[in-house]
C-alpha cells in the first residue's frame, strides 16, 4: 500500500516536472572565455553576475583559460564550432584570426552611433581590420612615465628636461641612473618611433622599418644611451624593477604591469611621456594594446552575445572593471565618474592614451618582431649603424610579407 502511494507521488512529481519545462522558456546560454586571474577575474565575474540578474532570457557562463594556451585554444576550437560565443583577447591576433576565417564575427552591422561614441576613438580603431569593426574594446594598456617622487619632484615635460633631470641623477659608478626602460625592446621603442612620425607599416601593410623617421628615433635612443649616458646597459625588465625599487632609477617608461612590481616603500607618480624637442615638440606616442570582446563567428546566439559585449563595455560595467579590476577602460564616459576621475593611476593612463597609437593588428605584425629585435640588438652592440640595421630588418620583413602574399 505504502509503495503504491509512493509511486503515485513520484509519478505526480515527474508529471509536474514535465509540465514546468515548456512553461518557462529556456534562457539562451552564452559562454564567455577570458584569460584573467585574481582581481580582474573577480571584477569581470561581478559584472557578469549583474548581467545575469538583469537578463532572465540570457545567461552568461564564464571560463578562465590559462593565458599561455589561450590564443592557440581559440585558433583551434572556434573555427570548428567548439569554442565560446564570446571571448576577450588583445588586438594583436585579430588580423590573423580574420584572415584564417570563421573565427571572429564582424559587428559593424550592430554598431549604432551611440555605441561607437562610447569608446576612446583609438581603441575602436584597434578593433578595426580593413575598415570593418570586429570587436568592442574593453580596456587598454599603455606605456607611460613612472617616476620616483623623492628623486623627481616634478616630472619632465620635454625631452630636453628629461635629459637634464636624468643627467643630474645619474652616477654610473654608483649604479644610479636617471632613466631606465627596455630600450632594446622594440615594443618600448615604439614610443620614440611613433613620436617621430615613424611606424612599422606605411599605407596598408607595406613595411617601412627603415623610414627616415625610424632611423632618427633610434639615433635619439642611442644618444640617450651613449652620449648622455642616462640609461643602464642591458636593461632587462628585472634589472629595471630592482633599480627602481632600490631608488637607483629615478624614472621608468613602463605600463600598468610594472606597478604591481614596485616595492611598498617607494613613493611613485605617473605622468605622460615627455614631448620630443628633437621632433619639433611632438609627444612620444607609445603603442597601446587593446583588449576587446569578440563574438565568435560560429556562435548560435550572435545577437545575444553582442548584447553581452555591449553590457560589458558600458559605463557601469567599466566602472567596476576599473575600480575593482584595476583595468583602464576603453569606455570614455566612465572617466567623468568622480571616483574614477579621482584615481591617479587611471587618470594618468587616460592622459597618456590620448597620444597612443594602437599596435597594428595585421597578421604581418608577427613577422616584424624578430627582425626588429635583431636590428635593435645589432645597433646596441654596435654591430651596425641604425640605418644599416634597419635596412636589413626592412628587407627581411618585406621578404616575409611578400612570401605570405605570393599569388
Amino acid at each position: 500500500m505504502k509503495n503504491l502511494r509512493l509511486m503515485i507521488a513520484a509519478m505526480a512529481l515527474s508529471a509536474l516536472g514535465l509540465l514546468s519545462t515548456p512553461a518557462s522558456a529556456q534562457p539562451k546560454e552564452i559562454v564567455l572565455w577570458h584569460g584573467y586571474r585574481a582581481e580582474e577575474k573577480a571584477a569581470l565575474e561581478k559584472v557578469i553576475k549583474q548581467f545575469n540578474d538583469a537578463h532572465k532570457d540570457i545567461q552568461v557562463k564564464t571560463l578562465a583559460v590559462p593565458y599561455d594556451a589561450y590564443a592557440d585554444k581559440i585558433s583551434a576550437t572556434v573555427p570548428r564550432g567548439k569554442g565560446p560565443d564570446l571571448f576577450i583577447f588583445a588586438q594583436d591576433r585579430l588580423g590573423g584570426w580574420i584572415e584564417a576565417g570563421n573565427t571572429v564575427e564582424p559587428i559593424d552591422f550592430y554598431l549604432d552611433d551611440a555605441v561607437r561614441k562610447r569608446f576612446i576613438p583609438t581603441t575602436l580603431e584597434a578593433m578595426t581590420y580593413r575598415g570593418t569593426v570586429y570587436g568592442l574594446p574593453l580596456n587598454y594598456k599603455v606605456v607611460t612615465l613612472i617616476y620616483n617622487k623623492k628623486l623627481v619632484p616634478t616630472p619632465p615635460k620635454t625631452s630636453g628636461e628629461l635629459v637634464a633631470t636624468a643627467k643630474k641623477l645619474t652616477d654610473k659608478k654608483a649604479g644610479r641612473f636617471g632613466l631606465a626602460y627596455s630600450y632594446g625592446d622594440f615594443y618600448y621603442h615604439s614610443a620614440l618611433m611613433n613620436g617621430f612620425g615613424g611606424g612599422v607599416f606605411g599605407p596598408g601593410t607595406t613595411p617601412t622599418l627603415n623610414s627616415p623617421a625610424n632611423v632618427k628615433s633610434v639615433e635619439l635612443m642611442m644618444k640617450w644611451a651613449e652620449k648622455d649616458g642616462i640609461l643602464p646597459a642591458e636593461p632587462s625588465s628585472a634589472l629595471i624593477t630592482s633599480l627602481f625599487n632600490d631608488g637607483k632609477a629615478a624614472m621608468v617608461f613602463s605600463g600598468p604591469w610594472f606597478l604591481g612590481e614596485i616595492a611598498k616603500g617607494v613613493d611613485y607618480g605617473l605622468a605622460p611621456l615627455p614631448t620630443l624637442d628633437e621632433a619639433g615638440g611632438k609627444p612620444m606616442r607609445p603603442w597601446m594594446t587593446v583588449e576587446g570582446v569578440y563574438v565568435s563567428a560560429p556562435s548560435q546566439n550572435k545577437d545575444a552575445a553582442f548584447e553581452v559585449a555591449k553590457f560589458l563595455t558600458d559605463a557601469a560595467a567599466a566602472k567596476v572593471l576599473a575600480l575593482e579590476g584595476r583595468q583602464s577602460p576603453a569606455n570614455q564616459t566612465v572617466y567623468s565618474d568622480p571616483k574614477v576621475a579621482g584615481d591617479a593611476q587611471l587618470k594618468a593612463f587616460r592622459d597618456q592614451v590620448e597620444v597612443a597609437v594602437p599596435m597594428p593588428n595585421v597578421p604581418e605584425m608577427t613577422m616584424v618582431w624578430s627582425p626588429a629585435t635583431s636590428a635593435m640588438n645589432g645597433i646596441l652592440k654596435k654591430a651596425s649603424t641604425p640605418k644599416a640595421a634597419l635596412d636589413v630588418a626592412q628587407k627581411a620583413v618585406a621578404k616575409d610579407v611578400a612570401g605570405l602574399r605570393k599569388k
Partner: protein
Amino acid sequence: MTTTAPQRSGGESAASAPSERGATEPLHSAGTPPGDARGNAPRRVRVLVGLSLALGLSLVLAQGLLAKALETVATERADRQAFISLRALEDLVQRAGGKGDSVRAVVSAWQQQLPAGSAVRVIAFSGIQLEASTFSEDKDDRAAPRRLSREEKPLYDRGQRLRAAVETNREEGSARKLEVEAEALPNGGRQLSAPVEVDGAVVGLVELATPPLKEPLYPSKGALALWLLLPLALCAGASFAVRKQGLLVIASVVALAVGVGGYASYSLGMLDAQVRETQTLVAGQLRAMSERAQAVMAERQLATELALQPGNWDADPYRRPLGLVTPAGAVNEAAVAARVAELRSGAGRALGGLGTLALAVLLFIGMGGLARTVETVVENRTAYAYIAPAMVGMVVLVFFPFFYGITLSFTDSNLYNTGQSLTDIWVGLRNYAEILGDFSIAKRAQDGSIVFNYLNFYYTLFFTVVWTVTNVTIGVTVGLVLALILNVQGLALRPVYRVLLILPWAMPNYITALIWKGMFHQQFGVVNHVIRMFGGQGLAWYDTPVSSFLTVLATNGWLSFPFMMVVSLGALTSIPAELYEAARVDGASRWQQFTAITLPALKPALVPAIILSVVWTFNQFNVIFLVTEGEPSNSTEILVTQAYKYAFQRYRYGYAAAYSTVIFGILLLYSVVQNRMSRATEAA
C-alpha cells in the same frame, strides 16, 4: 571447389602445415593447368574479364568527369551571363550615385528586361540601407528604402567583405581576394554579388538572383555503351583467332585504346561545342545588355562623360576582363581557341590518366596478377585479417599525414592561401633552398663580439646538437652513478630510494617543465631565492642565451636520468659477482673493475637506450617550448620548436613542412649511420 582446403588449414594450427602445402597443390593446377590446349580457355576469359573491367571502370569514371565538366560549363555560362547583367547594372547604379530615388528608378527599369524569376537589390553601407530591391519578400512594409533588419546581417557582411577585398587587392596590386561572390540558391538559381564604387570608394553592393538554372546537358548513355561494347566484341573476336597469350594481351590493349580513345574524342568534342556555344551566348548577352544600358542611361539622363565599357563586364571573380568576347560583342576567336586548347589539354591529361589506370587494371588481370594475388590472400588470410586493423590505423594516422606533410613542403601554403589547391601554390624546392641555402649564421660586431642570427637554420641545428649531446651525457652520467650507488650490496632502504628516484619520470613531463620554469623565475623562483640567501644577486635566467640554456638543461636532465638509471640498474644486477671476486683476487683496483667489467657488461643495455634517448632529446618539444619559449629572441630554439613557430606564429605552413621534412631527413640519416655502426660493432 578448391576453397575448402585452405579454409580448413587456415583455421587450424601449425600442426596442419604440411597438409596445407599439399592441399594448395590442386588450386595451382586448377588455376593454370599445364598444356596449351586446356590452358587457353581460362586465359581468354581472364583477358576478356580484365578488358571489360578496365574499360568499364575508365569509361564510367570518364562519364562522371564529363558530366561534372558539363555542369561546370553550364554554371559558368549562367554566371557569366548573369554577371554581365549585374556589371551593367552596377555601372548604372554607380552613375546614379549609389543611393536615392534615381537608383530605385534604374533598378526597376533593369528588372523589366530580366528573365522572369530574377531579382536584384542594391545595398548602401551608409546607414546600412536596403536602397532598392525587386525581391518578392521586400514588399509593402518591407519595401526599400529601409534599414536592413537583423536577420539580414549576412547581406551587409558580404558587402563589407567585398569592400575589404577590393581595397586589399588595390593596395597590394594583386588579385588575392574575390571581388565578386557567386553562390547557389536553394531553388537551383545563382546569386551574384558585386561591389558598387563611387569616386573610387566602395559604398555599396548590388546583387542579382537568377531563376533556377536549366538542367545541364548529360553525356549520352549510347556513346558509353558503344565505346564499351565495340572493343569488347573486337577483343572477343580476336580471342578466337589468336592462340598465343602474348598476342591476345596485345589485342586487348589495342581494344582498350580504341575504347578509351573513342570516348575521349566524343567527350572532347562535346565539351568543345559547349564552350563555343557559351561564348556565342555571352557575346549576345553583352550586346543586349550594352544596348539596354545605353537606353536606360538616356532615359534616366545619367552622367555620360565616361563611356560605357562593356568589354570589362565579362570578367573573372577579381573583375579582370576575360577577353573572350570583344567589347563590341563579338566572339574573340583567338582567345577562345586558346581557352579551348587549354581545356582540351586539361581534359586530355585527365583522360590519359584514366587510360593509364585502365591499362594497369587490364594488364594486372590479363597477365594473371589478380589470380595470383587472390591466391596469396586466400592462403594467408588469417595473417592479413590480423594486420588489417593495424594497417588501416597506420595509413590514416601515420602514412597519410606524413605524405601530406611532405607534399605541403613543396608548396607555399600559408595563412592567406589555405583555400587554394596545392598545385596552384606549388613552388618546388624553393622552401628547401631557403632553409638550407642561408649561411648568414653570425657576424662580427664592432667591439669584436659575435652576433648570431638566431633564426638561421644552421644556428638552430648547432644548438639542437649541443642540446642533445649535453643532455644525453648528463642523463647517462647521473643515471649510471645513481644506479651504481643503488647497486651497493646491503644498502638500507633501497626500495624507498628507487621509488623516489623514479618519480621524476613518473610525472607528466609538461607539469615538471612548468614547475621548473617557475623555479627559475627571476623574482619569485626558488633558485634565485637560494642565491639571495647566500648573499648573491638573483639572476634573470631567461635574459641571456647561456643562462636560458642552463634552465632547460637542468629541467631535461631531471627528466631524463631516471630512465638511464633504471636501464643501468637492470643490467648491473645481471653481472655475476664472481667476476668481481676474480678481479679482486688478481689485484684489480676499483676503477679497473669498473672499466673492465661493469662498462662492457652494461654496453648491450646502454647503447640502445642512448640511441633512443638521442632521438627523444633531439625532438624534446615540451621542455623547450614550455620552459624558455625560445627566449631570448629565439636563441634557445631547437629544430622542432622552430618549425612549430614557423607554422603557428609566422603562419608559413609550407615552409614549416619543409623544415619538418629536413628534421626527418636528419634523424633518418642518424639512424642509418647508427645502424651501420652498431652492426659493425656487433660484428667485431
